[in-house]
């Protein structure tokens, strides 16, 4: 027979492992957001606060198609398409006028765009949250090791996240479009001298970023709910990610996302437990959860003190 104590620490280990997976799952979604954000900044020099709106648009597109067709897979496709279409339209109408403006104008215009898009979606869909159902195949749990079972759907999200990271890697290193994107990151004058239709390239890059955000929105929408403003908390986390990883670096976005995802998830759960060693239980819970919510910002501050341009950023 196992003693209660070892049983207890085994439970902690299982809990830890489960939370680690949750953190990675959260991190992969953050990656979908921050990859687009960092790509758009790297190529066009645009700081886009409205990136969270594409997350929301993706989720709403998915919810709409799911309601019409009852197919989760079509809904996922719809999230990609919906966000991409919105991205193209918004890029052509508004965003491309901002590339030559300074950061302040970009911040303000994209902030205004958030107000416009959030209220626009509220107008169309109403203020009540919508729900997106997980398909039966992905419902339930799957055993990973002896004692550990984990949600199929969350594993699916992790899988999709890494699949897309791989896809982006191939796109950027192996394709003609990727060469142009990299050229654009290094030298904006050169690329137009090469005869690349730069405004088309920009529209494509913006649409890729938007559709990745849209996909993330739909996948998270199925766990949480689909509602106006859902993109904003994750947008700001994505900013933290790219500050940590180094603005413009996709590798930095991947490392930063996982780091932030895991730190946030593990910190919120284990910090209160850790503090119980030092102080009484109820205090530990409230202090722990408050500090837990600030942990990633503390992480960001620490990294900035050591390396002001982020882990993979050019100084």
């Amino acid at each position, binding site marked *: 027979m196992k003693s209660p104590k070892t049983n207890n620490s085994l439970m902690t280990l299982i809990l830890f492992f489960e939370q680690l997976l949750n953190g990675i799952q959260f991190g992969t979604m953050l990656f979908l957001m921050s990859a687009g954000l960092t790509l758009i900044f790297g190529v066009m020099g645009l700081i886009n606060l409205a990136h969270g709106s594409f997350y929301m648009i993706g989720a709403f597109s998915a919810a709409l198609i799911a309601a019409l067709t009852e197919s989760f897979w079509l809904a996922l496709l719809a999230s990609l398409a919906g966000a991409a279409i919105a991205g193209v339209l918004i890029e052509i109408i508004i965003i491309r006028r901002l590339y030559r403006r300074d950061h302040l104008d970009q*911040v*303000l215009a994209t902030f*205004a*765009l958030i107000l416009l898009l959030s*209220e*626009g979606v509220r107008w169309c869909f109403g203020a009540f949250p919508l729900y997106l159902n997980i398909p039966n195949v992905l419902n339930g749990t799957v055993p990973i090791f002896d004692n550990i079972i984990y949600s199929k759907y969350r594993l699916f999200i992790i899988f999709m996240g890494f699949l897309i990271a791989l896809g982006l890697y191939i796109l950027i290193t192996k394709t003609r479009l990727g060469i142009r994107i990299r050229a654009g990151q290094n030298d904006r004058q050169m690329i137009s001298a090469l005869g690349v239709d730069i405004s088309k390239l920009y529209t494509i890059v913006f649409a890729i970023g938007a559709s990745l955000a849209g996909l993330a929105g739909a996948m998270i929408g199925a766990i949480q709910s689909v509602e106006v403003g859902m993109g904003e908390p994750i947008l700001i986390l994505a900013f933290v990610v790219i500050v940590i990883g180094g603005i413009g670096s996709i590798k930095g976005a991947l490392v930063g996302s996982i780091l932030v995802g895991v730190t946030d998830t593990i910190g919120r759960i284990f910090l209160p437990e850790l503090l119980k060693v030092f102080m009484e239980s109820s205090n530990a819970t409230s202090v722990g959860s408050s500090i837990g919510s600030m942990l990633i910002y503390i992480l960001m501050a620490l990294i900035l*003190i050591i390396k*002001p341009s982020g882990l993979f950023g050019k100084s």
Partner: protein
Amino acid sequence: MIIEKFFNKWIMFFLILIPTCGVIFDEPYFITLATKVVILGIAGIGLNLALGYCGLISLGHAAFFGIGGYVTGILSFHALNDEVLFSWPLAVSGSSEMLIIWPIAILVSALFSFIIGLLSLRTSGVYFIMITLAFAQMLYFFSISWPNYGGEDGLSIYMRNSFPMVNTMDPLSFYMISLFWLLFSIFISLRLINSPFGMSFQAIKQNEERVKSVGIETFKVKLLVFVISGTITGLAGSLYTDLNRFVSPTVLDWHTSGEIMVFVILGGMARLYGPLVGAAFFIALEQTLGSYTENWQFWLGLILILVILYARSGILGLFDKKLKHEK
């Protein structure tokens, strides 16, 4: 500039006229709205020092607005419940005296702007924007998850804090108090921008490398501007809590940072009265559009985009140009 001065007189005139009308027609709501404009104007005047005059694009001024607000809320909450605020190293109790609350709110906001500035100013450009945003967001999440002061629901203080011999619950009296702080912060800004220090921070906005090369420690200058800027915004936060008799995490939300920035831009950057005009325009828009449609922010967003794309110099700038043409 002469034209701007002419407008400033009109602005002062309106600052007196609107509450007077409120009293004459017995519409206290008018006075309350005017007070809101004045307080938000102060917040914008604070940001304007960093943003408009020194070129520091802070997207985190909600942090200071919120800190001023929460310091006020917490002090008066403790006074109301007659609890000590903390017992170590000195037993400190809450207070509901504005004359005690203001200096504390000012000190705490200054302290926070110093710490946040010290870390953020190590970076520049987009990094600076995102880091100021992130620090404000950190405080926002802290305020939500810290249960002692209402967490997500916020903190009510029931009675406005008191000021010797003044009934602060009377809208006009509280308006006057806010107006005093507005004039004070305009006065401070005016003195600052015409001082040697002001010359340094305005030069930094235009060409930081040159300013360094003449031996001026630009980091220190920027940090001090940031602290003064955050402190003025913090003071506005304190008044805002008293105006609403309520403070909640909303004041720390990044939308608040965005809105304070919008006041500065709508009015016209680096203009002394710009943020006040911007705040007035914003509130007027909220009131008029808001009475027609629930989705007034949609139209606000649209107007903002148009202003940024086509009327970059703000409202005061528009008048400036128009009058110049007529001459």
